[in-house]
């Protein structure tokens, strides 16, 4: 199978597969679940087959001519393959976990439909080489996300879903304005045709508004903690695999692969994102709702990814690419552990939990491992990504920003261990057994992967390095 077919299948299988979910739902519950696992599994495998191509540093542009100026363009390069592989793989694990998590809920047809559509549009966005198609997939994701956040249908939840949708939609429209302004300069939406263009500062501002709203960066972040009302699987999907990673991915795709950033923005960006990171870490240290803490933690970690990319040197960019993988694995693990706990004790307030390590040993250890990885402690994978980002920041001549990033890491350690101590240690308040097997296996797998990613770092690192050299053309 050649690259073109594989990429088209990666996008079409989940999108078309998602619409078949209700049909299988009509037949039988089991058939629907099997179909969802099959489709997401296939979506996870397809990008993996592209890895050899990516590891050779291959780059291929696929064009399907449509209406003038709106060609369907796909860019297959190491960055896209990396992102697609990470997202679809974590998405697959979350689908498997969902089997246990939402098996007693209503509206499962819609749930699986939206989840698959979500993953599918993510694949589309990742490979898109046309600004308009990036925007289109961006909005499909927003719609799927809106339905999923309000999954439980309670009025308060629907309101939070509306908040998330309106904010990210508003951001996206502003971003579209930015795209239009760029069109004014370049007369094309094809990003392969405008590599190396210096974009106007206002267009950068408009686009960043969209990216920051999607990637939940201060001051456009508060919808993300509120989205914690969704089923935990959805939150994990939003945080680890699909939604918030779009912003950072689009940043890499647009501002590193395609455009050149004006110098003013290169000066200002590291400070903006680190303030975001610090504020979110502070909020995470104050919150007492399990999922809100983790949500703020994501906002905080996203700051690091932006930081590495905005430094635009080899260490920073490859650190951030790696960060997408490490954070995806660890944060998915943390949320799914939280899901097991919340499912069992029926509360989200960490003050009402305690001593769960006795009844949930696997979950507790998985949580600990993923925490270590998020903080950036070896031998877990998160160490390398965070270290490289900070190294890149120092090498980029911004030691104060690096110091702030390290202080934020101390804060991260503080609040994650506060959570761990309150939830898993101490005296047991609600002794409760662990969830179903599929749930426990998935969190264990994520913990093991976080460890393996650190021990065998040279493999993901190789791809991250290739992706970095491939996209940062000015470094060559």
């Amino acid at each position, binding site marked *: 199978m050649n690259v073109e077919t594989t990429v088209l299948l990666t996008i079409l299988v989940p999108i078309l597969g998602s619409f078949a979910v209700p049909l299988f739902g009509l037949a039988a519950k089991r058939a629907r679940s099997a179909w969802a696992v099959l489709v997401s599994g296939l979506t996870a495998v397809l990008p993996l087959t592209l890895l050899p191509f990516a590891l050779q540093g291959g780059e291929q542009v696929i064009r399907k001519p449509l209406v003038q100026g709106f060609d369907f363009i796909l860019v297959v390069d190491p960055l896209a393959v990396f992102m697609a592989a990470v997202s679809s793989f974590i998405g697959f694990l979350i689908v498997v976990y969902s089997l246990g998590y939402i098996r007693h809920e209503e509206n499962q047809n819609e749930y699986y439909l939206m989840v698959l559509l979500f993953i599918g549009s993510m694949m589309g966005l990742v490979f898109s080489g046309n600004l308009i198609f990036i925007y289109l997939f961006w909005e499909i994701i927003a719609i799927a996300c809106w339905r999923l956040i309000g999954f439980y249908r309670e009025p308060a939840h629907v309101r939070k879903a509306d*908040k998330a949708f309106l*904010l990210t939609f508003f951001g996206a429209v502003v971003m579209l304005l930015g795209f239009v302004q760029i069109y004014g300069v370049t007369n094309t939406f094809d990003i392969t045709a405008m590599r190396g263009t210096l974009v106007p500062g206002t267009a950068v501002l408009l686009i960043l508004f969209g990216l920051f709203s999607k990637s939940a960066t*201060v*001051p456009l*972040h*508060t*919808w993300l903690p509120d989205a914690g009302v969704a089923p935990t699987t959805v939150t994990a999907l939003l945080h680890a695999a699909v939604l918030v990673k779009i912003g950072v991915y689009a940043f890499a795709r647009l501002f590193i692969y395609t455009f050149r950033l004006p110098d003013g923005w290169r000066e200002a960006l590291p400070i903006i994102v680190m303030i975001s990171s*610090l*504020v*979110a*870490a*502070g*909020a995470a*240290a*104050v*919150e007492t709702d399990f999922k809100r803490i983790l949500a703020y933690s994501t906002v905080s970690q996203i700051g690091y990814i932006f930081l590495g990319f905005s430094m635009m040197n*080899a*260490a920073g960019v*490859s650190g951030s690419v790696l960060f997408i993988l490490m954070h995806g694995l660890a944060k998915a693990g943390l949320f799914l552990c939280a899901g097991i706990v919340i499912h069992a004790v029926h509360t989200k307030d960490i003050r009402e939990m305690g001593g769960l390590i006795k009844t949930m040993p696997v979950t507790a250890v998985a949580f600990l491992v993923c925490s*270590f990885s998020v*903080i950036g*402690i*070896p*031998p877990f994978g998160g*160490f*390398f990504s965070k*270290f*490289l980002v*900070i*190294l890149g*920041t*120092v*090498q980029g*001549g911004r*030691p104060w920003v*690096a*110091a702030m990033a*390290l*202080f934020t*890491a*101390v*804060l991260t*350690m*503080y*609040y994650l*261990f*506060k959570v761990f*101590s309150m939830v898993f*240690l*101490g005296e047991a308040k609600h002794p409760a057994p662990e969830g179903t097997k599929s749930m426990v296996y998935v969190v264990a797998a994520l913990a093991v992967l976080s460890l393996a990613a650190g021990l065998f*770092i*040279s493999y993901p*690192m*190789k791809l991250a*390095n290739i992706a970095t050299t491939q996209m940062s053309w000015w470094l060559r």
Partner: protein
Amino acid sequence: MTPKMLLLPILLPAVLAVVLLLLPRALRLLRDILAVAGAGALLYYAFVFFSVKDLRLAVPWLGMGIDFDLRLYHFSSFILLALAGFLLLITIYTTVRMKDAPRGREFMAYVFLTAAFANGAALANNFVPLLFFWEGLLVTLYGMITIGGRPTSGRTAVKALLISGFCDFCMILGIGLLWSVAGTSTMSDISVEPTGLAAVAFVLMMIGAAGKAGAMPFHTWIPDAAVDAPVTFMAFLPAAFEKLLGIYLLARISLDFFKIRPGSGLSLLLMIVGAVTIVLAVLMALVQKDLKRLLSYHAVSQVGYMILGIGTAIPVGIAGGIFHMINHAMYKSGLFLSAGSVEHRTGTTELKKLGGLGREMPLTALGFTVCALAISGVWPLNGFVSKEMVFHGAVETGSTIFAIAAWVGAIFTFASFLKAGHSVFFGERSKEVPAVKESQPAIVLPILVLAGLCVLFGVYNKLPLTLFIQPILQGRGEAGAHVDFTAHALAVFNPVALISIGCLVLAFLLHAYGFRKGGRKAYLASEPIHNLPGMHQAYDLAEKRVFDPYDQGLKVIRGLSLGLFKGIDRPIDFFFEKIVTFTGAKFTGILKKAHNGHYANYLAWCLAGLIILAGLIGLLAQ
């Protein structure tokens, strides 16, 4: 011997750790045999490596000039040997001491995992592998303290993790800066002048190294862990491994990476840190009522001597600091293991409840006494030799104040060990603990081995000095100068040694006075100093943790977090939740009112629109 062999000290303990963790409880005997045999094999290879001394393994790792680079040379092979020796003794001790402890299996696994990380850190010749192994120790540190199983163990573990983590993160920043200045991350290629940015890098890296060694103000988790963590852990990490690694790195930083000169500002900074650590920690140690806590404060205080010695930047001082590191690891480990032996039999380490155990536990008492005399610097034990070298170095710098601080430390060190030994093993037999027996051979053996080494390294100090210490300093200082510190190692008739011996006599008198004042109760011997005007208030504040940077730091973190949350996060959310929705509702409300269903109203709108359109067209037509 191929370079690949260098992976052995890392992989063997790591694999053993996994195996030990997975072996079921029923196979405990096999587990113990495997552990002891593994540690023995590591010690054997450490000797082999020590004889080889020169080996390098560098394989590409992360790209960007970051190799997985391990280098064996005399300094790292010496550290490797010391680590392996302690590992074997601790393993033997653990087989009995942690036999029935809950999570004992886990403890053994952590011991070996720690050994793997520590060996890696000692061998690393590139900053990234160094950080990988160095920071990896945080994981086992956290795990081992929680095994203590007391209600506060979790809290202490987090405290240790946060403090050590903070130090490690400082080191990351320092390494980043040094990397930018030197242009490489290969440790053996780096040697820069400590000026400007490099000086900042030095201070940050020093925080990392000194923090690992437990210097002030990064020490406060150690006394807490003495109570909350298993005593074996104390003998293993804070007493031995962390000191070895921390001082090893500190020596590398100030000898290799940066050219620190005597009398320079950074040398002075190191000496101040050392002197302050010596005096303040020993004053805290003096008044402790629990043997383990007392020992833990000494574990902090003694680091001061090492840092002071290295900080002098004078060969004899540096050699003294490094020699003190290995000596300290031996006697402090021996002391903690003795405390563990006492606790093993009596179930307590409170000085008040113990007394006169010497007759029932003669071997533990012997080991404890030798180690206590060694730490106090009594002639002719190893502590005397290394302390003398540090004193000489401090005097040679010309800043006598540092030598005085070191001597003050020596007085109170001896005084507090007189108190501790007297309370536990000598004096009247206490009635609070029932009759006990001497501990099992596996517990006593490591203590006696360590005590024996203390005697050997003192009486025959030529052996460690020529074998381990002097090669490290060879070729530094004036070119061609012969490095030899053995000449005056045990000499008594020089001013420095005479003052030190005077200090010991003073300490003895202090103890005797306090003993008589306290109604012939040894554990009250430190009360006269405790009750000195001014001192008492200071001690009370210290009890309340006013001086604990961790507690103060947590307050700052909490305050800052609350400030960020209430000051930035919530107002932003308020904007979206209230202001945006309110204006939205108002705006749509106005539009809604306009659409009231009255025909005349709509007609008016249409007319108004037409007029505006006409006006616009008119404008455009012009």
